[in-house]
């Protein structure tokens, strides 16, 4: 029988003072005792609505019951059958707005810690001996997947399981997309990502790095010269937005993409052992308040910044970052400047950043996004002295593939338009999913899109 306890079993975390100076993972994960203790809280509802909140529809109560019964291999099998990237999603999904928000427990108490449990099962699986080698692709038709971020990885994994030969084309020198270049190791260690990618390779998925479809080869060549029968486009939303304010090209101003890519993908965190240099700054202002902004400001602290601050033109309530990331940032000493709008980056005579000129804002009427519109307060300008400014104000899909391919339709925002049921683009047998279709969103939405596109591709190819 479920045991009613009001609170979640706490996630063990590394001390905020210590962890703010290194790149080791913050959350330490449950042990078996904690996991079983937490699993007992699941009410085993008749109508497990938590599943409706999950973009890949994990049978959540089933795997949790297996944990409660101490049957970890069943838990792992149930989880992996539904979600090909559980160790990643268990770490980076915003469960509080998806599965956990729907949990019946949350009506009176705290919801079951579904995310922590998912991560526990995936981590348990990771230290078990690998079983027999899975059956290798047995179907004759080949599928090309463009991009190795969450959408592409999941799509490739699903197709491989269904027997298709899949090749992923990745433009960078390492696979993983935003999981590799964007999300820092203190949230998602590379060993976890490498392990998940290793499992895909075991399924027979091939990964061709250093190939930019649209530059190195065209999408048409995939069909015409390379004999692929279908293509999945999972190219993400990798183009950084800039504000267009004066001083944005001063030395010491970065996009969050550049800041994080230098440190994560290029390993500047191991500088000087790694060759890519990084000047993260001593007083770092990060503009924006999404998950990427939190990752960036926390990374800045770990790179040796004395002060890291978030500058956001709206208030705490409109912030898009996950609650957990926000709390972790607060614990680590990040300063938050709410209702603060940057209007100019100031520099010295050598062109290096010295400060960020801002104005205070107040909240006005709701805008198109349903959030209160920030309105400037007159004569409220002030300067925050900083030596580094990072823009984390969103990204848009990279137009590179669309520009070099005829017949791929996009909407005004540059997102690929797809059939809602099949994920097929305006071109036959070219499918798409993830941020390339939705604009910048979450890892799990991309994973879900990759999964449903894989099903549609399978149906199309085997019809």
């Amino acid at each position, binding site marked *: 029988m479920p045991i009613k306890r009001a609170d979640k079993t706490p996630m063990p975390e590394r001390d905020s003072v210590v962890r703010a100076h290194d790149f080791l993972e913050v959350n330490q994960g449950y042990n078996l005792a904690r996991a079983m203790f937490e699993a007992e809280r699941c009410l085993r509802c008749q109508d497990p609505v938590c599943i409706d909140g999950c973009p890949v529809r994990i049978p959540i109560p089933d795997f949790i019951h297996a944990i409660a019964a101490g049957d970890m291999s069943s838990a792992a099998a149930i989880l992996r059958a539904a979600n090909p990237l559980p160790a990643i999603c268990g770490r980076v999904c915003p469960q509080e707005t998806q599965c956990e928000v729907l949990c019946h427990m949350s009506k009176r108490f705290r919801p079951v810690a579904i995310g922590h449990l998912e991560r526990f099962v995936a981590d348990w699986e990771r230290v078990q001996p690998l079983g027999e080698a899975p059956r290798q692709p047995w179907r004759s038709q080949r599928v090309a997947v463009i991009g190795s971020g969450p959408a592409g990885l999941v799509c490739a994994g699903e197709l491989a399981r269904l027997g298709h030969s899949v090749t992923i084309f990745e*433009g*960078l*020198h390492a696979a993983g997309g935003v999981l590799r*270049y964007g999300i820092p190791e203190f949230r998602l260690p590379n060993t976890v990502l490498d392990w998940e990618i290793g499992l895909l390779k075991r399924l027979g998925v091939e990964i061709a*790095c*250093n*190939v*930019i479809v649209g*530059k*190195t*080869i065209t999408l048409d060549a995939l069909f015409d010269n390379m004999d692929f029968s279908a293509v999945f486009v999972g190219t993400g939303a*990798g*183009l*950084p937005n*800039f504000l*267009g304010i004066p001083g*944005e*090209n001063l*030395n010491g101003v*970065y*996009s969050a*993409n*550049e800041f994080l*890519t*230098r440190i994560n*993908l*290029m*390993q500047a965190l*191991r*500088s*000087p*052992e*790694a*060759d*890519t*240099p990084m*000047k993260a700054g001593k007083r770092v202002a990060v503009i924006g308040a999404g998950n990427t902004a939190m990752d960036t400001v926390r990374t800045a602290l770990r790179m040796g910044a004395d002060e890291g601050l978030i500058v956001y033109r709206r208030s705490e309530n409109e912030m898009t970052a996950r609650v957990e990331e926000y709390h972790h940032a607060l614990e680590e000493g990040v300063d938050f400047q709410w209702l603060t709008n940057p209007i100019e980056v100031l520099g010295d005579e*050598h*062109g290096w950043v010295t400060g960020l000129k801002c104005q205070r804002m107040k909240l006005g009427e709701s805008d198109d996004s349903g959030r209160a519109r920030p309105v400037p307060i007159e004569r409220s300008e002030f300067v925050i002295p900083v030596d580094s400014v990072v823009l984390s104000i969103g990204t848009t899909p*990279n137009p*590179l593939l669309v520009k070099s391919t005829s017949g791929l339709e996009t909407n005004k925002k540059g997102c690929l338009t797809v059939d809602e049921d099949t994920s097929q683009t305006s071109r036959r047998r070219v499918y798409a999913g993830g941020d390339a279709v939705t604009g910048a969103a979450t890892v799990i939405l991309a994973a879900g899109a990759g999964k449903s596109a894989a099903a549609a591709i399978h149906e199309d190819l085997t019809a």
Partner: protein
Amino acid sequence: MAKIIEKRTLTPVTKLFRVEAPLIAAATRPGQFVIVRVREGGERIPLTIADYDRAAGVITIVVQEVGVTTRHLGALAAGQEILDLVGPLGAALELPVGGHVVGVGGGFGAAALLRLMHELTERGERTTIIIGARQQDLLILVDELDAVCHQLELCTDDGSVGFKGLVTERLQLLIEGPGRPDCVLAIGPMSMMRAVADTTRAARIPTQVSMDPLMIDGTGMCGGCRVTVDGEVKFACVDGPFFDAHLVDFDEAVRRKQMYLEEEQRAACRQAERRQTDAH
């Protein structure tokens, strides 16, 4: 991995590599570049595709050893492999139509003129190449460049061969003489490209320069390669590398390129020390 088919030492610090890269060779158009990474933990650097042979599936790159990564690359031998090679990147140069085209190459930038000028000459344009270096033995690819244009002008600081003086001074003579250029392409160090821009601005001769700012991914993802052109921010990796020389904000470009100067110098010292230790 891309295998090095042939290596030539052009000067003690300038190396030419012919590299097996069939997909890149097939897709390349004049003016594009590649990004290479030479070793684990290594950085990504852009290099112009100097020439390509589609039939053989080979591209030619030329590297000048100025920092840690270029020295690692320069140390590779024929038969060895370049860890990561990706491209072709950037937009192809829209080759100017009609008239007298002058390509100006400074230092190892001369190599980048090889294919560009070849295409223009093939198309029937009148072509002149001006290359310069401190002294004769630092001029590179003289015979190869001579073969792809109508007129090759050599410049040396010490007058050991050709015109004694800077490439811009030779260009100025050309502008004032009967063979006035209708269009100029300049590839080389930022200071030289800027000087070319200043020279042709007064004469109102359309001029394109190939910008090579710091860059990571080469696909528009990091925005590190921002260049201001006519007051507008461009990404050199996707909008360039060629821009209207008279509209480029060179002050900013020079400053941004020096962003990691200290780190680069420290890294070079460490590398030199390590090499000395290894030699003992």
